[in-house]
């Protein structure tokens, strides 16, 4: 166990990496939820051009590698004269990529609420937006919790893409420490545990929420 004390010397690198991973994930989570909501609304829109934009967005960003998308923001944009930090490039790439998956989860959730719910609420004189707000979305939210939980966990793990563009995240710290200490196994196992520190509470939280919301149905 001498190896772990060796790692202790690099405490600051791990703390910085951990905080970078955490903040990139949180930022990307908020952004991808916003993107997902907007794109899902586009896909469900009766307005054809909007539906089209939504579909193209989802199919393009869901079906191309995250690494390429992040490369574009980290290196492609600067080559066009638009400078952007590695952290921002990583967070934006993650948001755009995850947003496509979240949009699909939202769309499926909204569509799985029975058609009769919209008919009943519209019949009572409520507008489309009132029906969405009070009747459809609260029910869709319950259905969407498990797939949304998956997306959150994937998002945290996918944030390791920052390491490739020198984004200073946990995996980046691990690469740096292991190449200096040659303690390859110890370093990466330790970092994997640090990822679990973020993802496990997230998983438990989602399960708890799911059970609490399921109480009445």
């Amino acid at each position: 166990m001498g190896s772990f004390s060796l790692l202790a010397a690099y405490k600051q690198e791990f703390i910085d990496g951990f905080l970078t991973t955490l903040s990139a994930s949180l930022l990307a989570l908020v952004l991808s939820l916003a993107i997902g909501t907007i794109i899902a609304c586009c896909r469900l829109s009766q307005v054809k051009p909007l539906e089209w934009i939504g579909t193209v967005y989802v199919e393009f960003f869901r079906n191309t590698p995250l690494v390429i998308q992040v490369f574009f923001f980290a290196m492609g944009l600067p080559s066009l004269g638009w400078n952007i930090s590695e952290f921002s490039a990583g967070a934006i790439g993650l948001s755009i990529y995850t947003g496509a998956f979240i949009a699909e989860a939202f769309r499926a959730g909204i569509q799985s609420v029975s058609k009769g719910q919209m008919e009943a609420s519209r019949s009572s004189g409520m507008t489309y937006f009132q029906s969405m707000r009070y009747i459809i979305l609260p029910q869709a939210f319950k259905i969407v919790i498990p797939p949304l939980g998956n997306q959150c966990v994937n998002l945290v793990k996918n944030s390791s893409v920052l390491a490739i563009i020198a984004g200073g995240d946990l995996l980046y710290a691990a690469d740096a420490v292991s190449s200096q200490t040659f303690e390859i196994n110890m370093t990466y196992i330790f970092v994997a545990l640090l990822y679990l520190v973020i993802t496990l509470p997230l998983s438990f939280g989602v399960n708890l929420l799911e059970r609490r919301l399921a109480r009445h149905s």
Partner: protein
Amino acid sequence: MIQFEQVNKFFGEFQVLKNINLTIRSGEVVVIIGPSGSGKSTLLRCINRLEAVSEGKLSVNDTDLTDPRANINRLRQDIGMVFQHFNLYPHKTALENISLAPRQVRNIPLAEATEQAQQYLTKVGIPEKASAYPAQLSGGQQQRVAIARGLAMKPKIMLFDEPTSALDPEMIGEVLDVMRDLAQEGMTMVVVTHEMGFAREVADRVIFMDEGMILEENSPAEFFQNPKEERTRRFLSRVLKH
């Protein structure tokens, strides 16, 4: 109050409603019967524009439904609808199901809307179920909450789309009783149903539809005793035999 003039409706190539002419007056109880796929439900759903008519003229409460500028949300406030599968909001209690539209659409304050909702629950005979969620209610109770939900908007017209078809036989009576009371209070009602006993007893007028057309309309006594059309006689002999 409700007037169809030469209304046609198509689903793609298929014509669901053929040359419908029908006038329903205030306070009338009209029961529509006929085989599955005859267009009864579609006709009913045109009245609050859950379905738009393709051709002809339809006016309800002096609103021309074929006018694209017609204020449909306003129109629907005065028309309650009860569905075959209840369509209660599963995430809301019985009381909330009833008070939601009055609060959101009519801007009635929470306390008042809740009190009124409780009165409607009493009216349909289940005041004790105020805080129950739909999943905790029987089919008959759910449908009674759905009727109360429709009434809470104080509508001028109530539409019933096969309100007892999804119910256990034991629970049909309790729903029909509520509808019978409503008819006696003078509510304008349009009811699509297979309950011939209800039609005979409560209806002012019975309408028989087949293949998208109104084949026959008459008072219930005449309709059931002396059906004019051969198709009506065949239909009645099948549904009344058992």
